[in-house]
């Protein structure tokens, strides 16, 4: 929950991560393999934060990075792969071989974990769902409870509310108060921001509050759910950000190739994350020209209505 509302919650990414993300805390990230919080993940790795629990729906490269960097202790979620490209190399190395450390896994389905965030956002202890019944997800995950519903007597599964310590959500635009507007799909972001104890909004652009008021229907996360607002242009690269830039499939392919080998992965991590001072330095390394080509491609196909 937000301690105090005020006119200006803006800070740097370093400040926001340092203030809210602590060793051993639980995290969730906005986006859904697209509009991912890549810049925030880089900063978490740079600050050497450890023993994290990640509670999330489906993640690809950003979780592979976090796990490869040894920052994660536990995963509660539905999907850890690499989309159409393949399996996630660091996830496999961690789970199968304990390199660099073994992560605990608690499997859910996407609908099941979505209901955990919905319950968290509503501040109720549980939600009912018709997913996961009869499967081994329920067999191995004892927090999913089978019950007969007291109205009709049907079998139904209960899942407990999720309340991560911190939600980090990247959006297209926000004001300094923390009102966050999303264009395109919204994933579970509205619920993650509400379920978490603290919420950091990273955004492509900070806009005046007047601009927010002009399109109040697009405000997915109101100011009172938000603790920090950080402007991070290209903060999702190499993932896409609807209306801003397209998915960098070739960069991801190169990452995936490198990540298959632990040494090559560490070199990649050093080159793009550890040796980058900050997100602007990462953009410099990726190349501004490349980033703007991806923006040009995106805006060829869609532009957020003006």
């Amino acid at each position, binding site marked *: 929950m937000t301690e105090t509302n005020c006119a200006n919650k803006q800070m740097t990414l370093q400040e926001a991560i340092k203030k809210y993300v602590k060793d051993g805390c639980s995290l969730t990230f906005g986006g*859904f*393999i*697209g509009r*991912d919080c890549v810049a925030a993940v880089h900063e978490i790795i740079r600050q050497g934060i450890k023993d994290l629990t990640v509670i999330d729906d*489906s993640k690809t490269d950003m979780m592979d990075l976090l796990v490869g960097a040894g920052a994660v202790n536990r995963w509660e979620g*539905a*999907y*850890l*792969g690499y989309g*159409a*490209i*393949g*399996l996630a190399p660091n996830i*496999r190395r961690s*789970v*199968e071989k*304990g390199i660099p450390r*073994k992560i*605990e*896994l608690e*499997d859910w*389905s*996407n*609908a*099941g974990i*979505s209901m955990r965030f919905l319950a968290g956002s509503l501040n109720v202890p549980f939600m009912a*769902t*018709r*997913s*996961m*019944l*009869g*499967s*081994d*997800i329920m067999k191995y995950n004892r927090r999913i409870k089978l019950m007969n519903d007291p109205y009709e007597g049907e*079998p*139904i599964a209960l899942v407990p509310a999720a309340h991560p310590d911190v939600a980090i959500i990247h959006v297209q635009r926000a004001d300094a108060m923390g009102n966050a507007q999303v*264009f*395109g*799909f*919204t*994933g*579970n972001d*509205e*619920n993650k921001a509400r379920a978490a104890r603290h919420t950091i909004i990273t955004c492509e652009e900070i806009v005046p509050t007047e601009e927010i008021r002009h399109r109040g229907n697009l405000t997915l996360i109101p100011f009172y759910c938000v603790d920090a607002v950080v402007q991070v242009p290209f903060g999702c690269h190499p*993932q*896409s950000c*609807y*209306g801003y830039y397209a*998915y960098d*499939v*070739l960069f991801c*392919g190169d990452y*995936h*190739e490198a990540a298959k080998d632990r040494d090559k992965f560490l070199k990649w991590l050093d080159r793009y994350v550890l040796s980058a001072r900050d997100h602007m330095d990462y953009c410099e390394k990726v190349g501004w020209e490349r980033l703007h080509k*991806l923006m*040009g*491609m995106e805006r060829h*196909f*869609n532009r957020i209505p003006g």
Partner: protein
Amino acid sequence: MSENGYTASELMAIMTAKEFKDWEVAFVGIGIPLVAGITAKKFHAPNLNIVYESGCIGPQKYRVDFNVGDSSAADGALCLTSEWRVFSDMQAGYYDVGVLGAAQVDKYGNLNTTAIFGDRDYQSPKVRLPGSGGGNDIGSNIGRVVVMLRLEPLRFVEKVDYLTTPGYLDGSPDARKKAGLQGNGPVAVVTNKALFRFDPETHEMYLDTIFPGVDVEEVKSLVGWDLKVAADLKTAPEPTPEELAAVRSADPANLIMGGAAARNSLAGLDEYIAITKKYSGIL
């Protein structure tokens, strides 16, 4: 590419496309399932609407998706909403057909996308797979489910190591209903060599259609139980040039079907952007 001038993946996409009907709402994962959906829209199902688990409903496809949350999944969509909402709409019965992949399938159509145990276990398996994603939800809630996977050794097994997504569970008549599941279960398993369906009484998977040039014994040798074969076993027609053209224009840089090899054969980002723009079209 086969000697016939098409790849196994292309044939799988074309065979899967035939499972969609016009005006249906389809819940389709990225990769070949999506290529199949786009192909169907170009032929018999122009009004098929595709839903992505990220929260995109009925996009007008301009370009290839690599992930369910790529911007492309939202291009010109009828409705842009939340992940929890589309899964709830699935649970409420609004989606007619779902298509999903798997690493293992058993004879009752149960799927494993979580882990291949080998001689190990769930927490330390031989191969950790991505997990359910939305697969379990599709299998639990959608009326008609189509499964896509390659017919390769150790994939068609008597019993999956980990039952991620329910098919007909133990195959008993009311198994799904007793567990509280909705939907009728899987209707087809499309592979690179054959198409399988399920016996309406026993719920056991059987060989329904064999693909051109494939031998029944070859199929049986790749299946881990005593596979039954339809009395009226069909042979799939060769894909038409129009079908192949449609599939290829849905993946013009061949990055979905062709994988790393295709990525490496591109000169770079400029070529990729140029190809994507060139083949973009409104469906």
